[in-house]
């Protein structure tokens, strides 16, 4: 049996349609079988509510008198992109305030607008014959704008890899706080309620299909940026009128140490046309697998620690390296569920009308990394190749002599085989002199936990290490842990005025 979209629309109009959420669907299929479920269920609603950085809105402010061509635009000190005609701008969710930094950003501007608060618009122009005005400052409410149209380039990720951190320091990421030594796991996404997960072949989700977006009836534009359905990471570009949105489903947020983002509520109703739709909407959390990615590795290709299902993630704890590790979601399952339920009402009441895609979304694409034509500086480009090191059994006094003679502040300590075992700084020696205790040898005063770098490491990563650990030098080691160079704060000076700034 197959059903047509017209039949489903007719049933909705007549009040005979059965609309369920994607959470209810697996049980219905268990009970009635696929054919039975196809007969019984007409629409399955989905929902997700979580941080979606790739969001923003086009705003039209209307013309001032005398008119101004707004070239640079700020809303509550958050810069919006003004390079579109004269009184339009695009406010992006993650843009930081110039005055309040990470505590306020584009997402907050959007939430303030939707909550009915006044927002200060400030704009500058060079002035033209047709637009003579050079600056303007005014307070605006959402209702004062001609249009405020949310257009989110990448929302509704099909699923998202979970995060952990194998290093011995806490990390603050867009996946929240990651405790050291894989002390916790964070994840995002609503699993079985996720829109694309209920239609992974994009047969019913496509351009022109209705959607719930931040409380407003909206629409799917088409594939989102970075859409990568071949690997199971499809995304959607979506739109809706901000004037119809609710702060319940549009929330500014700050990920500590990362910055501003926007929590977006998104849901899509899926008409149940055939048994393939029944099967895809009966997806369970157990079926949806993601990797737990180690964010401790500062590279694009971070290693996966293991595969995990949303069912395990949602259970609150996951086994990792033989230990139970607690999980945190960053998205709200409670609100995702509310969205699916709201959509159920909307469909039943005819607030939105179901439609098939006017244009299908590509199901084969995979996103590729950035093509980089100019390589940034690496440690080997600027490191000191002259290494003065010391053995761990030498006396503190000879360490002091070496430091003086070598005009350096850091002495890597090596064992008999030449492997790095510690580091001694002028500070450590001064401390040993001021507080003469039992310490006589280098091994007594050296720091054993040494933060290192490698020749191939990009300088930006090494600099991040210096900053994070509040230190001023890193021994450069090879694969056998032998010291082959030193990277000190002084070497970084080579970056200025050199070829890396051209």
């Amino acid at each position, binding site marked *: 049996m197959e059903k047509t979209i017209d039949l489903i629309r007719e049933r909705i109009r007549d009040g005979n349609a059965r609309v369920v959420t994607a959470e209810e669907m697996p049980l219905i299929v268990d009970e009635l079988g696929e054919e039975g479920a196809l007969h019984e269920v007409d629409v399955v609603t989905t929902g997700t509510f979580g941080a979606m950085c790739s969001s923003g809105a086009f705003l039209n402010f209307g013309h001032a008198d005398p008119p101004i061509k707004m070239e640079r635009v700020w809303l509550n000190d958050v810069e919006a992109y003004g390079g579109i005609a004269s009184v339009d701008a695009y406010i992006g969710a993650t843009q930081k305030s110039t005055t309040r930094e990470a505590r306020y950003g584009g997402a907050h501007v959007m939430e303030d607008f939707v909550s009915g608060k006044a927002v200060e618009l400030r704009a500058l122009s060079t002035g033209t014959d047709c637009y003579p005005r050079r600056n303007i400052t005014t307070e605006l409410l959402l209702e004062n704008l001609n249009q405020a149209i949310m257009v989110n380039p990448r929302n509704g990720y099909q699923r998202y890899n979970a995060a952990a951190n194998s290093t011995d320091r806490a990390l603050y990421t867009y996946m929240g706080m990651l405790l050291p030594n894989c002390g916790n796991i964070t994840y995002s996404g609503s699993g079985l309620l996720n829109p694309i997960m209920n239609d992974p072949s994009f047969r019913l989700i496509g351009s022109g299909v209705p959607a719930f977006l931040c409380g407003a009836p909206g629409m799917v534009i088409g594939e989102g940026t970075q859409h990568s359905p071949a690997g199971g990471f499809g995304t959607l570009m979506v739109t809706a009128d901000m004037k119809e949105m609710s702060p319940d489903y549009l929330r500014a947020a700050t990920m500590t140490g990362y910055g501003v983002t926007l929590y977006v509520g998104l849901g899509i109703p899926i008409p149940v046309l055939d048994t393939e739709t029944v099967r895809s909407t009966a997806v369970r959390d157990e079926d949806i697998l993601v990797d737990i990615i180690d964010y401790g590795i500062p590279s694009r290709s971070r290693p996966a620690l293991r595969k995990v299902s949303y069912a395990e993630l949602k259970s609150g704890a996951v086994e990792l390296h033989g230990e139970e590790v*607690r999980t*945190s979601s960053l998205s709200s399952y409670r609100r995702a569920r509310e969205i699916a339920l709201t959509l159920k009402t909307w469909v039943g009441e005819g607030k939105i009308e179901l439609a098939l895609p006017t244009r299908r979304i590509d199901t084969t694409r995979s996103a590729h990394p950035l093509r980089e034509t100019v390589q940034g500086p690496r440690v080997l480009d600027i490191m000191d190749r002259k290494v003065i090191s010391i053995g761990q059994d030498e006396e503190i006094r000879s360490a002091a002599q070496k430091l003086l003679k070598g005009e350096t502040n850091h002495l890597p300590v090596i064992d008999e085989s030449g492997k790095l075992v510690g580091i001694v700084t002028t500070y450590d020696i001064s401390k040993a002199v001021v507080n003469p205790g039992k310490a006589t040898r280098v091994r007594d005063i050296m720091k054993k936990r040494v933060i290192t770098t490698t020749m191939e490491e990009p300088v930006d990563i090494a600099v991040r290490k210096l900053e994070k650990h509040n230190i001023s030098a890193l021994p450069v080691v090879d694969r056998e842990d032998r010291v082959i160079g030193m990277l000190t704060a002084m070497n970084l000076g080579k970056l200025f005025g050199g070829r890396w700034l051209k």
Partner: protein
Amino acid sequence: MKLIVTFSRKAGKKPIIAQVVRETGVLINVERAQIDSSEGEALIDIPDETCSVVKERLSELGASVRVLEDVISLDENRCVDCGACISICPQEVFSFDENWKLVVNGERCVLCGRCIEICPQRALSQKGEG
């Protein structure tokens, strides 16, 4: 029950918590302590029924004692029940109920402040400090 004990160290480094343990026989669990050269603050956990005797003796020894009750405050209007706080809390103060609503079990809190720092919605604060 949890108590915040503040004491001055200007008069000397007296082991007052140890002294109270010895005198009262109450097993005091020190959950957090920050002590510098001039003063110290410790968060201790004791059985409820021993509260008055421990409090009295600590006060006699010159410490000021405050009972810690439900110190973490959740702004229900800000919270979206994401759960970012759940796995980072060393005391397991936070959990979801069966409807995925966040539940705060403030009695366990030792005021480490981590959740306040990382809540994406800035919905958590220390009571009395807004």
